[in-house]
């Protein structure tokens, strides 16, 4: 035993124990979500839960626990956000990595990273007091709380993530690629578009997936500005309800142990599985990128 400690094995095990904390917490989250969430399957079938078109957990007899409109609501606002964030984010990353002067790059990189730290509730607040009234007047709507309002804000929020990671990826493409392209007579912009961008593409996909993960998991903005109607979205100018917003808005009023609460935990399970798939996909593309450029 004494020998065991003298070799420092004891300390190593102590560190290992703390290093495993993240894994424990992750396992704890899975257990908590699924042990409550799966109980909803006592009330409705999995098919009725995931594909059911009506979410009437309260004030309806019988109540309905279909979350299809809520899942689609999340996808809808995330889709809108990505339409804004992908072209701008990737464009900005290419600019910062390939075109901007070193001095400008030194300023732009930290500034964009800093903008990523703006708390989500501040975006939500801005949405309520400024963007929603603007959207209402612009499109002559009865109310400004729409999928579009949420998408614009989520797009802005996802931008720093996409720009920062894409820029890192583009900068890590080996300089040989560029030199070979210049030697063939290509200009700087042609090299960026036709050589560097394709080489960095899998890594940029990683950045986009992580940005999507941020948008789909974001709670406050969709709680405050998306409107909240649990109906299947057909337009960007209608109110929608996302998964995170449903949990945030209804957890307070759901009775402990009721099917309603189990359904909210069930939504948490769906959300968790989606973000897990995003993490796995992001990692896959990241590995492919590193292998492709040989770093």
């Amino acid at each position, binding site marked *: 035993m004494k020998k065991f400690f003298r070799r420092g094995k004891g300390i190593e095990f102590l560190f290992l124990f703390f290093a*495993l904390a993240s894994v424990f917490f992750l396992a704890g989250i899975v257990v908590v979500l699924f042990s409550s969430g799966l109980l909803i399957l006592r009330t409705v079938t999995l098919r009725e839960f995931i594909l059911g078109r009506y979410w009437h957990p309260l004030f309806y007899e019988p109540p309905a626990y279909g979350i299809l409109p809520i899942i689609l609501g999340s996808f809808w606002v995330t889709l809108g956000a990505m339409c804004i964030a992908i072209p701008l*984010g990737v*464009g900005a990353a290419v600019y910062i990595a390939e075109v901007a002067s070193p001095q400008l790059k030194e300023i732009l990189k930290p500034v964009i990273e800093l903008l990523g730290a703006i708390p989500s509730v501040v975006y939500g*607040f801005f949405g309520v007091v400024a963007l929603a009234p603007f959207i209402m007047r612009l499109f002559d709507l009865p109310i400004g709380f729409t999928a579009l309002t949420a998408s614009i804000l989520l797009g802005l929020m996802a931008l720093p993530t996409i720009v920062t990671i894409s820029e890192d990826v583009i900068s890590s493409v080996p300089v040989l690629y560029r030199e070979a392209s210049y030697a063939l007579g290509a200009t700087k912009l042609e090299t960026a578009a036709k050589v560097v961008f394709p080489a960095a593409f899998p890594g940029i996909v990683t950045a986009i997936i992580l940005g999507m993960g941020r948008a789909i998991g974001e709670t406050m903005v969709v709680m405050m500005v998306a409107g909240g109607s649990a109906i299947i979205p057909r337009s960007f100018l209608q109110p929608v309800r996302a998964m995170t917003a449903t949990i*945030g808005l209804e957890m307070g009023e759901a009775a402990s142990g009721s099917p309603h609460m189990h359904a909210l935990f069930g939504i*948490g399970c769906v959300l*968790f599985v989606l973000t897990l798939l995003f993490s796995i996909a992001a990692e896959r593309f990241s590995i492919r990128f590193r292998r492709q450029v040989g770093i």
Partner: protein
Amino acid sequence: MRKFKELVFSVFLHTATALPLIALFSVIFFIISRGAMVINWEFLTQMPRDAMTAGGIFPAIVGTFYLVLVAVFFALPLGVMAAIYLVEYTRQGGIVQTIRIGVSTLAGVPSVVFGLFGMVIFVRFFGFGVSILSGGLTLGIMILPTVIRTSEEALLAIPQGFREASFALGATKWQTIYRIVMPNSISSILTGSILGIGRAAGDTASILFTAATFYIMHLPNSVFSEVQALPYHIYGLLTEGTHAQAQIPIAYGTATVLLFLVLSMSALSIVMRNRFRRRKKW
């Protein structure tokens, strides 16, 4: 034709960079320009009065401070030790791989899901109730991946030669970590953790069901008290209460305080980190 294509592409790249910057700065300016008008010494140091329509936001500032304190005291030691294991005791193998996957997955979990976890485990299972302790621990778990990553980066920045010199003098692994690695990396670990503080101070969804309350008229008196917190206060001022028009200016002020807090914390940690990165060559 080639020139024209270049021009179009160049215009696109410039727009793509300028547009988000303009948008994000206008959001900040919009809020700060209105918030600055309500902020004064009383606003920062007084209790709310007249059903949240007047007075200050002192309890929310104090509440956020306590929540962040608990989160950092929980996440910092845990995260640093995890990083030491990952960097100093690295053996390529199943366990390290599992930990890495665990950390990166935890980093992608939405904050509202951390809130659910905190509600079930800290509020109910451990019986801490809706409290500073429950909320702080929930925030601590949420920022753990950030702390681990920044600590790892700080440890990796120490040249391998330092460790080898220590081993050559007959020091054990633990002595090397304790006497050589930690003293040289502790300042960059601490600046990295400021990034986590900024995140914890600004997050709302994870404290919705674990710590935050809107109506409370006194300061917290123990770690088991419910608290007001700056981000939740903004949300509460917009969605609760009966005098929406009177509450909006207070919300601008609160948002300005929160923005100032989070942005200055993050700016500090980004500047310090970049300085450490540059000094990497020793």
